[in-house]
């Protein structure tokens, strides 16, 4: 069954159809949130669960203008921001030199650690645009940012990340 049919069934209250949709998209959403949550899997899964429940409650509002996965990611990102605001978390904007002591046994490990040093919008923008292959327009919609702001987050994030990785290596 294709995604549109599943969405139509889910909008009519079919939980089995919704479960099939969730099964398809959970990995992408949880992966995105894990990176936002700096690898905290429990937090990322809690946020993903809340986002998926919210999406179920609002599924009739989904007009199918974009991908369902993008809509879920948008809800997930909003949930993350709410959580961060409640915890009064300040976006990390530290100097690249602070990471000089970071170990670098593996490049992938370095990437995750370096990502954790970026501000949440930068981390989210880079993850969506590169690792998850969303277009800039889609990523801007997910993060509810103007396209120009998204591009500057991507550019700034790239610069910081590169500096961090060079320091680490």
């Amino acid at each position, binding site marked *: 069954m294709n995604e549109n049919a599943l969405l139509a069934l889910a909008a009519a209250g079919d939980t089995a159809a919704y479960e099939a949709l*969730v099964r398809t998209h*959970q*990995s992408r959403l*949880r992966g995105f949130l894990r990176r936002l949550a700096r690898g905290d899997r429990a937090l990322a899964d809690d946020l993903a669960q809340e986002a998926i429940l919210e999406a179920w409650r609002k599924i009739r509002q989904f007009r199918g203008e974009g991908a369902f996965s993008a809509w879920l990611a948008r809800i997930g990102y909003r949930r993350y921001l709410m959580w961060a605001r409640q915890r009064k978390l300040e976006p990390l904007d530290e100097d690249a030199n602070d990471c000089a002591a970071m170990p670098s046994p593996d490049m992938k490990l370095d990437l995750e650690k370096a990502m954790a040093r970026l501000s949440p919008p930068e981390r989210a923008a880079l993850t969506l645009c590169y*690792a998850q292959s969303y277009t800039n327009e889609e990523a801007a919609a997910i993060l509810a940012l103007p396209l120009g702001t998204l591009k500057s987050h991507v550019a700034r994030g790239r610069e910081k990340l590169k500096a961090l990785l060079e320091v680490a290596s």
Partner: protein
Amino acid sequence: MTEQEFEALLKRPLVEVADQGFSRGITARIERQARVGIWVDWAAVFVTFVLIVLFVPLGRLAAPFEVIGIGLGLSLPFAIACAALALTQAGLRWVAD
């Protein structure tokens, strides 16, 4: 690190997250919430009904209907009208047969 290596690193897809009952757990939660919702709805209907029975003066509300009902039952014109209706109906059926 060269620009190409950096680009490739950024584009590397995130690690696949295994479902391991995650989707099923969410569906179970949705179904549980729906069941609770139904119970809450019925409880609200029941409480409303009890409050109506307890606080609405049903006797006083029913009194006018009682008066009208008794009045109609004792009214001669109403009895004649009913009889006329019944006779007309019977006559029509006889003609049709």
